């Protein structure tokens, strides 16, 4: 057999051909470039054009950043140091960073307080945002608003304690009576909270803030990016529950509730935010006696919350409308009452659908907080537009300041967007 085969066949491979590398043009970086950048003439031209544009941008921007001056004390000194070369004057950031972050009136030796509140924000937000974490952490989340209030505004610790007691009393009343009748529980809770606040407010002695552990800082002294963060976080966290309530109210069968919600939503959505802010800052002060106005920060929070709650309500209504009618009927057929059906079946699905929309509103809201600069509150943009650009040292520094503001906002907004995408993946139960 072996003999025959060797003789009758001209060539037999007696082993595998050694593996040779693929042709150079079909491998590695070259293949990737050919496939992705130069797959056709048209794409090739576009690639070259894009590279030219990128080169142009970077060749202008990078020297500007690298030559940046960080240590001078005014714009004219920057110009002297640079001697006509391209270069940024980042000194404004190193000199005024505290004003950009905290505003120009927050006491310098107290910066640790808002910083600590900011760090604790992550601890407080974690169990809400990542629900795999132990549920016990929620206790800290519940305490956080009062803690943060005390840290940022300072003054007597009795004020946040009374506020906390009021909320606790409301929760207790609702727990006790809410099971029997929702309405009694709900209104009883509100009454209990106000009773505690009013009585507690009377009990706090005048001048309790004067020698408090933390020096009291009035709202007017808050500013900078801290103000944007405070407005953003407060308004988003208040407007989501309010938006859910409005969306459910709009679907209600009870005409009064339905029409209140419809009118509220349509009215607020029909008015520009800036108008609401002007009302908050200018008009409301006509309605209050000169010495006992409602705090400007609180007025602005109320207006922005109303505004974003109306939008979030419509987003959530979209989620509710997207649920098949069978889900509602299934809940009814199980014998669940309204609250149970909403809590266990309808809202979990509707909110999941609404996540991109809610995040969209939240990101927009966070950026809209810069509008408060037009009612002369010194948020990040207000600080830049007003005091810093009006100072004799830094008049004329635009790119550096507004670039820094853009970076700060981008970090936060991109973070929110990434979180929402994670949340969507985490909640995905379908088979796509």
């Amino acid at each position, binding site marked *: 057999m072996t003999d025959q085969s060797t003789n009758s066949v001209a060539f037999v491979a007696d082993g595998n051909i050694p593996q040779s590398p693929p042709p150079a043009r079909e491998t590695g970086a070259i293949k990737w470039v050919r496939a992705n950048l130069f797959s056709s003439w048209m794409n090739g031209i576009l690639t070259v054009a894009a590279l030219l544009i990128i080169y142009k941008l970077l060749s202008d921007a990078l020297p500007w950043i690298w030559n940046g001056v960080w240590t001078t004390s005014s*714009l*004219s000194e920057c110009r002297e140091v640079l001697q006509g070369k391209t270069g940024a004057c980042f000194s404004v950031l190193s000199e005024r960073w505290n004003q950009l972050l905290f505003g120009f*009136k927050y006491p310098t030796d107290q910066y640790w307080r808002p910083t600590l509140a900011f760090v604790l924000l992550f601890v407080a937000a974690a169990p809400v945002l990542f629900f795999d974490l132990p549920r016990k952490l929620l206790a800290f989340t519940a305490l956080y608003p009062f803690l943060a209030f005390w840290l940022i505004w300072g003054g007597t610790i009795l004020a946040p304690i009374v506020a906390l007691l009021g909320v606790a009393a409301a929760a207790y009343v609702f727990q006790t009576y809410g099971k029997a009748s929702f309405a009694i529980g709900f209104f009883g809770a509100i009454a209990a909270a106000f009773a505690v606040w009013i009585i507690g407010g009377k009990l706090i002695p005048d001048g309790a803030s004067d020698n408090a552990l933390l020096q009291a800082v009035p709202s007017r002294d808050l500013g900078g990016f801290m103000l944007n963060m405070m407005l953003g976080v407060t308004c988003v966290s208040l407007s989501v529950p309010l938006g859910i309530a409005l969306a459910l109210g709009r679907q209600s069968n009870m005409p009064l509730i339905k029409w209140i919600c419809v009118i509220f939503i349509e009215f607020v959505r029909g008015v520009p935010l800036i108008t609401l802010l002007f009302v908050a800052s200018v008009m409301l002060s006509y309605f209050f006696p*000169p010495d006992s*106005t409602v705090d400007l920060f609180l007025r602005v929070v109320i207006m922005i919350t109303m505004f974003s709650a109306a939008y979030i309500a419509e987003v959530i209504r979209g989620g509710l409308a997207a649920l098949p009618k069978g889900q509602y009927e299934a809940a009814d057929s199980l014998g669940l009452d309204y609250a149970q059906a909403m809590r266990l079946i309808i809202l979990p699905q509707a909110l999941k659908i609404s996540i991109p929309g809610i995040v969209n509103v939240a990101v927009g809201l966070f950026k809209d907080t810069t509008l408060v600069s037009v009612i*002369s509150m010194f948020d990040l943009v207000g600080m830049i537009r*007003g005091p*810093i650009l*009006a100072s004799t*040292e830094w008049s004329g520094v635009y790119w550096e300041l507004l670039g820094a503001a853009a970076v700060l906002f981008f970090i936060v907004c991109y973070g929110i967007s990434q979180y929402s995408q994670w949340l969507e993946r985490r909640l995905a139960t379908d088979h796509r």
Partner: protein
Amino acid sequence: MKKSVFFGAMTVAGLAAGAAAAATLDDVKSRGKLNCGVSTGLTGFSAPDANGEWQGFDVAVCRAVAAAVLGDASAVEFVPTTGKTRFTALASGEIDMLARNTTWTFSRDVDLKFDFVGVNYYDGQGFMVPKELGVTSAKELDGATVCIQTGTTTELNLADFFRVNNISYEPVPIETNAEAQQQYLAGSCDVYTTDASGLAATRATFDAPDAHVLLPEIISKEPLGPLVRHGDNGWGDVVRWTMNALVAAEELGITSANLAEMAAGTNNPEINRLLGSEGTLGEMLGLDADFGAKAIAAGGNYGEVFAKNIGEDTPIGLARGLNALWTEGGLQYAPPFR
């Protein structure tokens, strides 16, 4: 329920506003702080420095009034206002006085119900153009795009000027001086127009100030001064005579350097009356006898305040011009302290 709260608040507000209108001086004294409205930022006139301390020419007026009334130049709560919020802030009682380079006009005085207590800076509206445009007179600006701050008298003056000269322009509305500067440098408009003092201050911060010229035409009168609400003449007098004290001090040669010496008593009775060692002028205003001395101690006399904040040795470099004393050919003239 909401409605009744609303009406309740309105009623309370009405009652309180009636009460508050009467005695701003007492309110300020019992509060221990003067609420003074200033600009959110105008180079040389009012801006907080790196330490958050308000500085500037308008700010100095607030400090002088606080010193005269409360004896402490730092007892001021500065309330930043924009061109749009300034008048409502004053009318609603949020601030006691407004020192925000505000032009004294008929309608603001009469129709908006304010009292201008004097003029701390005589200004006029001018034009700045890039030199390369080759324009030498504002009358050559036919068809130009003009950067202009909204809500100010400059906007109206500009329309008047172009109408009178029968030429056309295209306005580019902007909000703040800083924004205007940027728009102008970026070439969004050919011309920037605002008060001449503001133009000089703006030009001083440019990379190449020589590349821009101020046109010779001054097209308006802009008497800038502090103002208070109508109807409380006692408080108006306090602010008016505090300002007059600063001007009179310059005229009489009282400076922050020789103030202590002069306050002890001189042989010039007018100085003695102004500084309180003679007469009862302070008492007539409801203030301490030495209110004038305290106001001058806050930042010096009018000339010193001018030199420190906007004078020729500062980056802004404004000459006294119309704001020199009347004895030196200017318009600053204080009625006699008698």
